[in-house]
């Protein structure tokens, strides 16, 4: 409970800081909504020309996008620090977090907020509500599955950003890997087969971020729900282990900074 209160307090503080620059906040949110909408327009154009590809239609891709956008928005909105970890490790900026009693990894991830994430989340929820014609049960499942997918996004971000403990600079690499995950997650699963599919359920967990949640939204299946649960716990374990092992290699940047 203490951890929940701590996280809530940080998120609230980050939100208030962001809202201090109201115009910048709303333009970032609106910009991201438009960015996401453009992708849905692409799919609309595509499915207008080809109404079905291997059983996939416009509604299916809308659900994929709504889950991914909501999950990614929540991830960068609530735990944006996970996505900037590599640069902070490279600059030796973790000292502040190491001397405080709170769990270091939790403190690091909630200490930053990417305001554009709220645009993603807003877009995802709106698209699901207006284009996917959900029932109340669908809506409940959507919220739960988005939170799980957000947890996997954050875990993946922590794991790939923690590579900076070994490589020094890993900002570009981690950005590319996260972008790669988003790219795979926002296309129909049926496009991928064989070894690529194995990769998408392990190294690049698009299967857990999008494919399984979407299939559960279509049709509840206890077996797949269990796989998703195991995948989520596995993602968190990999993230915490990578960060904890990497932290032993951390070197301070002896940075003096004022935090107000």
């Amino acid at each position, binding site marked *: 409970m203490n951890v929940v209160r701590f996280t809530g307090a940080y998120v609230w503080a980050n939100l208030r800081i962001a809202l201090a620059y109201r115009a910048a906040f709303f333009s970032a949110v609106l910009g991201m909504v438009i*960015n996401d909408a453009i992708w849905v327009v692409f799919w609309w154009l595509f499915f207008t020309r080809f109404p079905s590809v291997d059983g996939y239609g416009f509604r299916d891709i809308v659900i994929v996008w709504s889950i991914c956008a909501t999950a990614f928005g929540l991830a960068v909105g609530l735990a944006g620090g996970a996505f900037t970890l590599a640069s902070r490790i490279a600059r030796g900026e973790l000292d502040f977090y190491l001397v405080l009693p709170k769990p270091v990894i939790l403190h690091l991830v909630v200490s930053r907020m990417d305001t554009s994430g709220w645009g993603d989340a807003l877009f995802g929820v709106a698209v699901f509500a207006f284009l996917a014609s959900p029932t109340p049960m669908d809506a409940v499942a959507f919220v739960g599955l988005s939170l799980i997918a957000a947890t996997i996004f954050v875990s993946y971000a922590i794991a790939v950003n923690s590579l900076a403990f070994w490589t020094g600079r890993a900002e570009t690499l981690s950005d590319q890997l996260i972008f790669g995950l988003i790219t795979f997650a926002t296309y129909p699963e049926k496009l991928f087969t064989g070894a690529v599919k194995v990769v998408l359920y392990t190294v690049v967990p698009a299967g857990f971020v999008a494919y399984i949640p979407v299939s559960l939204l279509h049709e509840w299946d206890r077996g797949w729900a269990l796989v998703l649960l195991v995948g989520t716990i596995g993602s968190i374990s990999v993230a915490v282990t990578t960060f904890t092992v990497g932290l032993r290699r951390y070197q301070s940047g002896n940075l003096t900074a004022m935090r107000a």
Partner: protein
Amino acid sequence: MTSVRGHGGRGVVGIAAYRMRVIQAYFVVHLRDQMAYLGEVALGGIILAVFLFVLTQLWQATFRFQGADTLGGYTLAQVIWYLVLTEAFITSRVAFARKIDTDVRTGDLAYALVRPGGYVSAHFGAYLAERLVRFAFALLVGGVLALLSVGPVPVGPVPLLVGLAASLVAMLLDFVMVLGIGLGAFWIEDTSSIYLIYTRVSMILGGLLIPIDLFPDTVGAIARALPFAAMIHGPARLVLSSGLADVSGLFTMLGGSLALAGGLVWWEYGVARRRVTAQGG
């Protein structure tokens, strides 16, 4: 656009020659800079490779499911090479609007304006170097992937050269548009969301992911009336075509858009410069 009197000899020709030397100097410096950090450029190839791989799977499934050899006049191989060309244009973009935005907000612009050579010329030289290196690298990565996945397509030397020339003009037009967006920081706090919208709208209406020939008729007509199609779809279509049909229309659209956007940004720059205030510090 800053004063160059005393640097470039006499008259418009002298000023233009001086500007060209400034652009060349910045181009050479930034080209060396790009070469020194080729690893960073190469990392950018990862996402291009992922994107092309995913789109190749999508179009292969589409052709298979439609049971067609050609769609909108394109074979599967042509669609994949089309994507290589359009992706190379898009992924080589240089987001220098953010730099201008920062210069305006921090006041660094006031210092930059008094440097010899001109603020815009400096940005253009740097832009061209970074853009061309990225473009060449993207073509290389995309070309290798396309060769491996669908093999070569017949391309004539003349359409190839004219298509690349059209891409160069399109890059110049892109520079002018991004410059205009960056200078918007004189009036609004943050131009990053406008830049984001510009890139996304140009991606869709430029035919990045779907050739415009496959758009629904109404949307296709709108897309063709805007400059984005000439910037992205046009050069790619030209390279893959067997002749030079529509080449004059393409260059007319690019040239007209460049003149219009150039005029507007020139005016915007003039107004913006009058708003520069030095705050000391």
